[in-house]
C-alpha cells in the first residue's frame, strides 16, 4: 500500500530508504513527522497537500495532525521557491550591524521582494530570526551554508556569484 502512494509521490528511492530508516528511531511513529517532512522537502522542494496526506498515512495519523505541524514551522513551505534560498537574519544583533540593509541589497540585486521568487527564478529571499551566529553579524544562510559578516558589499558579491553560476548553467 505504501509503495502505491510513494510512487505517486515520486520520491527518490534513496529518500524512501531514509524515510523507512528514520521511522525506526522512535518508539512512536508520530515522532518521525519532522524528519519525514525534512526528507520530502529536501527531495521535492516543498510540502504539498498530497505529501501531507502521504506522511499521515505513513505514520498512521490524520492529515490534520501533519498539516498542523507543517504550518507551524517556518522552514516548511507549501509552495515551490527559487533555485536558491537566501535567509537573512533579521534579529537584533544582526540588525544592529546592518541586517536590514543586507536584506535590501539582496532584494535589489535580484529585483525581488522578501517572500517572493525572483523574476529570474534564481532565488527566494526571506527574513528569518536569529541564526545563532550573532557574533559574526550580519549573517545569511544560503541554502545550507552560513555566510558571516555579510554587509552590503558582501551581499552584492554573493549575489553576483549566484548570478554567474546561473549564467554558466544556462
Amino acid at each position, binding site marked *: 500500500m505504501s509503495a502505491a502512494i510513494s510512487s505517486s509521490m515520486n520520491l527518490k528511492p534513496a529518500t524512501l530508504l531514509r524515510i523507512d530508516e528514520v521511522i525506526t528511531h522512535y518508539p*512512536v511513529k508520530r515522532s518521525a513527522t519532522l524528519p519525514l517532512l525534512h526528507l520530502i522537502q529536501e527531495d521535492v522542494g516543498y510540502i504539498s497537500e498530497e505529501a501531507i496526506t502521504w506522511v499521515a498515512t505513513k505514520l498512521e495519523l490524520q492529515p490534520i495532525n501533519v498539516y498542523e505541524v507543517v504550518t*507551524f*514551522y517556518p*522552514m516548511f513551505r507549501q509552495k515551490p521557491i527559487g533555485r536558491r534560498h537566501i535567509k537573512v537574519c533579521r534579529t537584533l*544583533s544582526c540588525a544592529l550591524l546592518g541586517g536590514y540593509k543586507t536584506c535590501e541589497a539582496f532584494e535589489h540585486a535580484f529585483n525581488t521582494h522578501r517572500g517572493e521568487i525572483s523574476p529570474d527564478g534564481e532565488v527566494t529571499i526571506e527574513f528569518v530570526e*536569529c541564526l545563532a*551566529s*550573532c*557574533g559574526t*553579524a550580519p549573517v545569511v544562510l544560503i541554502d545550507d551554508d552560513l555566510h558571516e559578516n555579510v554587509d552590503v558589499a558582501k551581499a552584492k558579491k554573493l549575489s553576483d556569484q549566484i548570478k554567474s553560476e546561473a549564467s554558466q548553467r544556462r
Partner: protein
Amino acid sequence: MPAPQQRRIIFKHIDAPGYTNDLACYVRHGGYEILKKAVTLPAATIIDEVKKSGLRGRGGAGFPCGVKWGLVDRKSGKPIYLVVNADESEPGTFKDRYIIHQDPHQLLEGIMIASFANNVKQAYIYIRGEFPHGARILEQAVAEARAANFVGPNILGTSYSCEIFVHRGAGAYICGEETGLIESLEGKRPYPRIKPPYFPAVLGLYQCPTIVNNVETLCHVKHILEMGGDTYAKIGTPNNTGTRLLCVSGHVKRPGYYEFAVGEITLGELLNEVCGGPLPGRTFKAVIPGGSSAKILKFGETFTLKNKDGSSRTLTVEEIPMDFDTLAACGTMGGSGGVIVMDDSVNMVEALANINAFYAHESCGQCTPCREGSLWMKKITARMVHQQARSEDGALLKSVADQIAGRTICAFGEACSWPTQSFVAKFGDEFKGYAETRKEPKRADALELV
C-alpha cells in the same frame, strides 16, 4: 588590573589549529577516556559528583543539574529518556553552535556519561533546523562513536547500551523550551505543557521520565567527572561554579565567544578589555546580558546589593560580575550567556520594536496573554516607528507586558515581556519623546532595526 584570562575547558579545542571534528582527532586528544572511567563507576557516584560540582544548567534557567537528575522518577518502571537541547535559539546566543560543529564528540561523551549515570537507554539530540551541517556532523559523529563502541549496544564491553539519535527542528524558538521541545519531538505542534502535572522528570517524552539538558551543560559533565565534583566546584564562585561560555554581539570591536570562570569577569572587563570596547567614536548605551529575554542594563545605572554580612555595596553596570546570582540581584539574568551590546547610535524604541517582532513571531499562540500580548506589543512599537507615536505608548506597553509575565503556560511569557518592561522602565524618555525623535533630520541614516 588586567581582565582575567579566559579559562577554556569546554572551548579548549574550538578554533585550535589542526583540530578536526572527527573521532580520531578527538581520541588523539584524550577523548572518551572519561566515559571509559564512568562505566566502571556506580551510577549514583556520577550523579553525586555532578551534585557536588554545583553545575547549573547553561540553557537559560540556571537550574542545578544534579538536582534535576535527582528529581527523575526512577520507580515508574518506564524508560528514562535524555533529550539534549541543541535548539540554540535565544537571540544573542551562539555557543552550542561551535561545540556541535567543531567538537561534536565532546558533546557525545557528555551525553553518554549522563545517560549511563541516569540509566538512559535512548537519547535524542534536538538540534535547530537552521544547523543543517551541524545535524550532519552530529550524525556522522554518532556513527563513528557507534562503530568504536562508545555508543550503541554494550558499550565498551559492558552490559550497558544506549542509542543516540539526532532530531532536527524546523525554525521555532519555542522548541527550545523543554516541554515544547518534547511535544515537537513527539511530532506535534510544540505547545509547551502545563506544569503541574507535566514535569519532564516524571511525565516527559512519551509520558516517561525525561531529562532535558543543554549542550554546554552536558559537556561540563564530562569535565566534572574528569576533575571531580569538588575540584570543579572551586572554579568560579560559590553557587556559581565552573566556567561558562559568553557570547558577545552587537556594538563592540571584537564580538565573539569566550569562556570564563563564572563570576570571575565583570561585564565591564568583558566588553572593554576582552571585546575591545565600543566601536570608534561611540559609547556604550545599554547591554542585554543573557540573551534577548534578559532585562536590559543601562550604562550609568547603579545597583545597591546586600552582602551576606548585612552590609551593602553599590555596583555600576561595568562592575557586575557575570554570574547567575549577581545578575539576578541586579534585576536581570545570566540566562543563556548571550550578551548583546548597544551603543549611543541606537534608539531604544526601535531596538525594542526589533525584539518585539521576534517574540510576536515566535509565540506558539497557545495561551491567551502571550499570544495576544506579544503581537500587541509588536504592533504598538511598529506603529510608533512607522506611523505615529503617542506619548502614552510607553505606559501602555508596560501595562501589556505586566499582563503577560507570570500568567502564562511557559516562561516565554516572561521572555517576551521582560524586554518591554525593562526598556520602558529604563528608557522611558525615549518612548515619551519618540514622536519628536522621528522627525529629526539626522535620523535619515539611523540604523534600521525594524
